[in-house]
């Protein structure tokens, strides 16, 4: 007993101040890549290097269409290494959670030189229009109502619908003294019947499809669903195949998407609080809007 008290006194407070205080992120953390679209001369090396197809190119006669999808990205940094022009930079951005899947996607169209290099940026679409845009005013009202009911105290049921366990490691870390989710009035519960939010990781496998749908049905209204990680958003590196159906939103409606592979605990906090209306979305239409690139 003496050792326990001695250790507690010695240790003092270890809990971080985020989100009230800015996050302290180590210098070598690999966050979101940032693209200098206007000066980008050649997207092919980066697209070739991308393990998941988060950077995809389509070529037509004299045009090249480059699609960047943060929802597929596993933040490996290969694109920045492959692209020697400096148009792709790795940043330390981690607050990447969004409410609309389309907000994670940017499409750039280029006119090409005869040698295949990109001449000029013809158009840039940040974010994809979604059918929900029409419903926006109504949805806002519903959201506000949900935030009022759930905003102060939230019970989360975590569902692993087929992940590699990487996301679970980081979600589990939210319970440790460093991130201590309970200080924000949020805690994990054992049953979906006690939950206000499902935190779901993917890719959703064929064998977990039914279990996920049943878990969703067992959760009382109003409820929120947050899809975690590249696989939970899009199927990630596994993609869709005979054994998986892809992202969580193919099975249940999703309120917030948290990119990452896995998302670091700060990013998870941001996404959960975003779903509650207690934090703001930082990625606006396909472009992350926070700190400066560091390399």
């Amino acid at each position, binding site marked *: 007993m003496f*050792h*326990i008290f001695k*250790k*507690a006194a*010695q*240790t003092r407070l*270890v809990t971080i101040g985020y989100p009230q205080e800015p996050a302290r992120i*180590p*210098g*070598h953390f*690999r966050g979101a890549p940032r693209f200098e679209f206007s000066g980008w001369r050649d997207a092919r090396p980066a697209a070739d*290097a*991308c*393990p*998941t197809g988060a950077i995809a190119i389509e070529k037509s006669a004299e045009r090249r269409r480059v699609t960047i999808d943060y929802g597929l990205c*596993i*933040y*490996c*940094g*290969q694109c920045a290494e492959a692209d020697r022009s400096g148009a792709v930079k790795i940043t330390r951005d981690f607050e990447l959670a969004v409410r609309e899947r389309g907000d994670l996607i940017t499409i750039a169209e280029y006119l090409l030189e005869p040698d295949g290099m990109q001449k000029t940026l013809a158009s840039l679409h940040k974010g994809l229009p979604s059918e929900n845009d029409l419903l926006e005013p109504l949805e806002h009202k519903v959201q506000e109502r949900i935030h009022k009911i759930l905003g102060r105290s939230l019970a989360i049921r*975590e*569902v*692993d*619908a*087929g*992940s*590699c*366990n*990487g*996301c*679970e490691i*980081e979600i*589990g*870390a939210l*319970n*440790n*003294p*460093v991130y201590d989710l309970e200080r924000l009035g949020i805690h*994990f519960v*054992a*049953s979906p019947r006690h939950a206000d939010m499902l935190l779901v990781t993917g*890719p959703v*496998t*064929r*064998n*977990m499809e*039914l*279990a996920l749908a049943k878990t969703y049905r067992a959760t009382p209204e109003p409820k929120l669903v947050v899809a975690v990680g590249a*696989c939970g958003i899009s199927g*990630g*590196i*596994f*993609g*869709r*195949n*005979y*054994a*998986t159906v892809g992202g969580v939103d193919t099975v249940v409606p999703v309120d917030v998407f948290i990119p990452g*592979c896995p998302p*670091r605990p700060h990013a998870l906090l941001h996404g959960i609080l975003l779903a509650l209306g207690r934090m703001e979305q930082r990625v606006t239409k396909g472009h992350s809007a926070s700190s400066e690139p560091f390399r």
Partner: protein
Amino acid sequence: MTLPSLLSALQFDEVRQRCGIVFVEWRVANDAEIHAEVAIDDVRPMVAALIEYGCRLAAVFAEDRSNADSGFLIYYVFESLRDQRFLLVRTSIPLNSPAFPSVAAEVPAVNWQEREIQDWFGLVAEGHPNPRRVALHDNWPEIHPLRKDFPIDTVLPPFEGEQHVYRPTLGEGVFQIPVGPVHAGIIEPGHFNFAVAGEPILYLQLRMFYTHKGIEKRFEQLPINRAVYLAESISGDSSFSHGTAFCQAIERAAGVEIPTRAKRMRTVLLELERLYNHVGDIGAIATDVGFGVANAHASRLRELILSVNEELSGSRLLRGVVCPGGVRHDWEPQQVEYCAEALGRFEWEFADLMQIIDGSDSTRDRLERTGFLDPQKARDLGIVGVAGRASGIDRDLRRDHPYAAYDEVPFEVPVYQEGDVLRRMRVRVDETLLSLWIIREMLTKLIPGPHCVAIPPLPPDCVAIGAVEGWRGEILHWIRTGSHGRLERCKIKDPSLNNWPALVEAVQGNIVPDFPVINKSFNLSYSGTDR
């Protein structure tokens, strides 16, 4: 067994001469592998003879070679304490009778692996004592996804019928507790069906493969440099070990020796992975017996290691670091310094943590003799890694088949005979201290030099094995290269696949409330098993 006595014992070549089995082929492929072939009728006597001579059947897997007009091949991977090499014996299956002789009755360790071959390739394991499906659930249609003529993007119709038929639970006062696949904690999915009589567990039936995502098939789609990332996603807590095993197989296939600095850097990272998992597990075991304050400190220490991971690699789980040929980025002196300093702090804090845990008699009372895995059963089931070493199995790939820079740090493998939760925790404690020593040795030896070499494009049909002692146990990757820089086949064997049957044995006779702590003491990977 210590290193000198290993060297004086029998090697595979001597076993071959004495065992009286006719091998169609016997070829030393490289310094880590012997490739051999036997006729299909000789498989059973061959396996029996090699086991008689103290070899261990580490893996059984199949390959569809119909594209090369060779039908199917079955591979038997043997490991011996007496030989640093792996012996891979293959046999071809005649096209007109798609079946192979099962050895599961004699070697229970390959029970699931043979059934996987049945499910994935549609080859019959003749004489298998329990030939039911394992890797595909009962409600799946009759498909064989790893056959070459099965397209990976096939969309299967909605499933109907029972997922799995469990052995009935019968008897007065005997009832069943079904749990999962969605569990109460933040863990992976699987189904446990307990048959209990009051509190004690009579038996446990497992249903795994809920997270099966077609990884082995997916490996055949990706170019090799991208496939590394898939390897890192086989089991989230073993990203670096799986990535390294995969890269080792590629390097061996290419005949490339990685630079000394890369070897040492990999060793550091492999041990960091062991550290954060071991200290996390020690805390989790404490939690499961209601000792929350110990877990609070343990998870704090785990965070410390994760911050070192991030400082050295950019990723808390060590993703995106390893690459074929070495490691992707070199370390600057400040990074190494940060690591050394953090580990110095970790060491004394870990001593404090263990003082807290060891000072609690009630904790010891809950852990001792709980979840006993009999050493004989452990040997029969081919249990590997931490769970094996707690039940008397003196094996560790780092010592027995050194890779990376482990040949520079000979060490004593911690082994216990008692096989309970306490000893599985003790193995982790001993290995944590060992890891700290290994990392410190590596950091002092980290002389400047290249951190990566280029791997030449691989021609088709290069085969090689990569083996890593992950924190959980033996990880094997076997590859065959294909055309256009892709793989023809990648076989993955995670230690969890060996060890689930051990959990079934260990829980018998224990009370239901002790299941969480017994399960945690094994801490097996569902994703690594299911792939």
